[in-house]
Every structure is written in C-alpha cells, then in structure tokens.
C-alpha cells in the first residue's frame, strides 16, 4: 500500500477536508492508485535539471504604485455567507 489511512487523514486535515470513517478505506485505496501512477517519476534521472514553474522564460512585470478603484465593499460582500457591519463573520476564534 503506497499510503496508510492514518497518513491520508493527516493530509486531509492539512487540506481541511474530513473523510467519513466508513469511506476512509476506499478513499485511501483510490488515493493509493494515484500515488502508484505518480511514483513513476522515481524512474527518471533528473540530476542537474532546473525545475520549471512556468513554461516560458518570462520575468515579472511591475505595476506602478497607484491606487486603483474605490470602495467595492457592497458589490463584493453581496456574496458573503455571513456579514455584519462590514465585517465577514466566522465562529468566534480564540487566540
């Protein structure tokens, strides 16, 4: 088995996904299938090869430091699931 159910649960927590216990073994098995596929990468020697993030040799363009746009709060917060007095709301967080 390329991965254990416990490890799958750890990964799920990192990704904030919860896996129903009754489905864990199937999820693990299918996850494992994908890992088997990608483990193929172990068979190629890439020493000295620079990793490629973007396919072309472009460099970052810079934007002038100018304020653009105005208060868009109303339009953007129209999609908010919970809001009050201009704040997005989440269950109380204790630090």
């Amino acid at each position: 088995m390329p991965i254990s159910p416990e490890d799958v649960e750890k990964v799920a927590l990192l990704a904030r996904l919860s896996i129903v216990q009754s489905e864990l073994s199937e999820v693990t098995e299918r996850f494992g299938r994908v890992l088997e596929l990608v483990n193929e990468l172990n068979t190629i020697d890439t020493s000295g090869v620079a990793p490629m993030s973007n396919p072309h040799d472009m460099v970052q363009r810079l934007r002038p430091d100018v304020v653009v746009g105005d208060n868009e709060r109303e339009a953007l917060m129209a999609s908010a699931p919970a809001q009050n007095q201009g704040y997005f709301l989440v269950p109380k967080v204790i630090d």
Partner: protein
Amino acid sequence: MGDSAPLNASVSDLHQLLKDRAISSEELTSAFLKRIDQFNGQLNAVVTVCSEQAIADARRADERLSRGDAHVLTGIPLLHKDIFCTLGVRTTCGSRMLENFIPAYDATVVAKLKAAGMVMLGKCNMDEFAMGSSNETSFFGAVKNPWDPNCVPGGSSGGSAAALAAGMAPLVTGTDTGGSIRQPASLCGVTGLKPTYGRVSRLGIIAFASSLDQAGPMARSAADCAHMLTAMAGLDAGDSTSADRAVPDFFSELTGDVDGLRIGIPREYFNDDLNPEVREHVMSALTQLEKAGAQLVDIELPHSHYAIATYYVLAPAEASANLARYDGVRFGYRCDNPSDLEDLYLRSRSEGFGEEVQRRILVGTYALSAGFYDAYFNKAQQVRRVISEDFRKAFQSVDIIAGPSAPGVAFPFGAKQQDPVAMYMEDIYTLAVNLAGLPGLSTPAGLINGMPVGLQLIGKAFDESTILNAAHRLQLDTDWHQARPALEDSLA
C-alpha cells in the same frame, strides 16, 4: 425564420448575413435559445440560460450593426464554459461550492468578447473545478454526448463541446489544463484550440492549475476558431503570466497553404498502445495533408510516458492551493451552523467539493507536504522541463507535431469510474502540451462506429497560426468537421 442554415453558418457567413441585415442578431439569438430549450433537458449541456440578457444584448448588437460599427463577431451568440466569471450571472464551476456564486466582475475574456458585441446565451456545464475528462463530476449532473446520449462528451469542457455539437451555439469557450478543450472536442466532433500558455488572459477564470490553465475557442471549424482567438487573445496587465505578444488576425493568416509543412509524427504516440481504428483515422487525416503538400517526419518525444505522472503531481498541487480559498468565509458554500472555525472549514469544504476534487486536493497537498516536496513536486517540475526540452528539440526539425487527441471515442457513462487512473489516461496525448505551454488543437478526423475521433496538432509557442492553417487545409479538403449528430434521432 424557418431556414436552419444560419444555425449552421460559419462566422464569416453569419457576419455577412448580419451586416447585410438579412438576419438580425435578435432572430439569430432567439433561434439558438430555442435550440437550447429544445435539447438541453436531455443533454444537460447548459447550466444557466440567460434569455432576457441575451435578447437585450442582441438588440444592442443590432443597433451597432445598423450603425455599420460592427466587429466580425458582433451579434453572434456564444456560450461560456461556467468557469469564466460573468458579472451578475451565476458562475458555478460545476460545483456545489459555487452553486449560487454571482461574480461582481467579468473575466477579461468575457469582457473582450462582450466588447466585440457577442451575445452570451448562457453558461455551460463542466467537470467540477475543471477536474475530469467526461463531465461526470459536475454537481449539476452529467452531460450527454449528442452523438450518443449513453456516452460522455469528454471533459472538463464537456458542456461546451456538447452544446456546440448540438447546435446550441455557433461558438463556445472552454479551458484546457491537461486536454479539457481538445479531448471533448475530439469526442464531440468539433474543433477546439488550446492556445499557447500566456496567449489568452486568465484573469477572471476560476483557477485550477495556474501554470497549465489556458482559455480557448471551440467552434465548428478552424476558421471560426481563428476569429474567436483573435478576439480573445492579447496581453492583460492584470495577469502577470499573460504574454506581451502581438495578436495577428488569425483568420487572415489562414492561407490553406501547407506546401512543405513538416509534420512530426512521434513514435511514442503511434506505438502498440494506440487503438488501431484511431490510428487509421489519424493517419488518414495526415495522408490528406501530405496530399496537400505537407511532409510527414518521424520524430521522438522520448519522455512522453512521464507526462501523466508529472501532470498528476503538478496540477493537483497547484489546485490544492488554488482551492484553499473556498472556505465558507467570504463567498461560496457554507455549511449549516458551524460550531467553530475548524468545523466551518471541514464541513463547508467536504460538503461543497465532490469526490474527484477532494481526491486531487489530497494528492496535491501530499505532493507539497514536508518530506515529499523534493520527491514529488520538485521532481515533477524537473521532469516538466525535460518534457518541454523534448518538444523544443523536435521542433528543430518539424513545424508542427501530430497525433491522436484521445485514446478512443466517447465511452459510456460509468465506464472509467472504477479507477481514477483509468479516467486520467484519457488525456494521455494532451497533457504534455500543457506542461510545455504549447498551443494544441483537435480537429475532427471522421467517425468510428458513428462516434467522432480527433486529430491533434501541436504547434511551437505562439504559433497558433500554423496549426490552425493545417486544420483549415484539412477542413477544405474533407468534410469530417461538418458531420453533425442527428439529434432528433439520437435523442429519441
């Protein structure tokens, strides 16, 4: 308007008809809306229909046409894949997570086509968050292939391809991260183009894998794709990965001349794994091009077989981060009565995302996690460069590269669900093109037992013209691209 000819007319012909006022945009739009109404119940290709808005836009286009102030696309209707944010119009990305999401902005592509005067009929169904090759992962239900309603249309732009093949619109937009325009185009018998990475702006397109995603046109001909691409392409300062390249009039570059065109035939694509019937059709298409003066050249892309492993590390990894913003806080699905913050996250995401999306997020998170980054993510980025190098070397001796778009024709629903990898293999010929950031298109190459098969053409970076022109040549010499499903029969 009893004549169905305008529904099948090319962009150039439609433009002429509209300019001559032989038909109005409103009439055209109504006709397509009627077609959607007629067939969408069964095909489920369109998720949101914008009848009122479309008519209003059509009337505005008619005014513009009357003024003589029209672009070649003015007044022509289209459907957008539901991955393009559309101001004021629900954009779901095929997911429960965005079931009721109404963007406050247009994607750049949407704005550009709007500015050209196109009329948006609605939003097309798709695999959830663009993850899939059969349009079976959509929260809004599967899309049926108009050629055979028991079969998938391909994915993730399955709704777009099906709608186009069913004549619900003359032009549709799609996105392609690993084959999501080309493979459904192949399975539905239409022409679809994935431009060079950076050719078209990604701003406002819901991100799946940022370094692989690209938006492109799907149409019934290479010529129509060329018109659309010209209007879609161009530098966007709001997208840092958008390339500063002049946009030619792709349509006017279609000379149809392929004399001396060197077409690379990679032996890795034409090995024993290739379905013999697919091989036959693809070779038949290539023979056509040879007759027209092209030269077939044997080439090698030695690391082709690593493309799928590379893609299934990089795409899920980028996606795992791109989808982290869906947390039930500022927009999108939120679970009922979250007890605390962690509950909010866990339930909103687990309830909002479907199985395939969750699987890819897990794979991607794993590939980036401590202890695995070097072996998976970094390694995959290295192999990406190796694969790109293969193409670069090959293009030293050829102008374009050809092969099948997909391993077979459209398959029945559920046929590839038992093993996620079986589905992933659908994109075996298309994935490498996204890894290398090159342009690729699929053009129809006939039917196998009544089901479409596609020829894929891959070009050099920013050389969409050459592959469009080759497809155009093929479409001048054959009529495969004109085949249409007899919907009244297939959907009876």
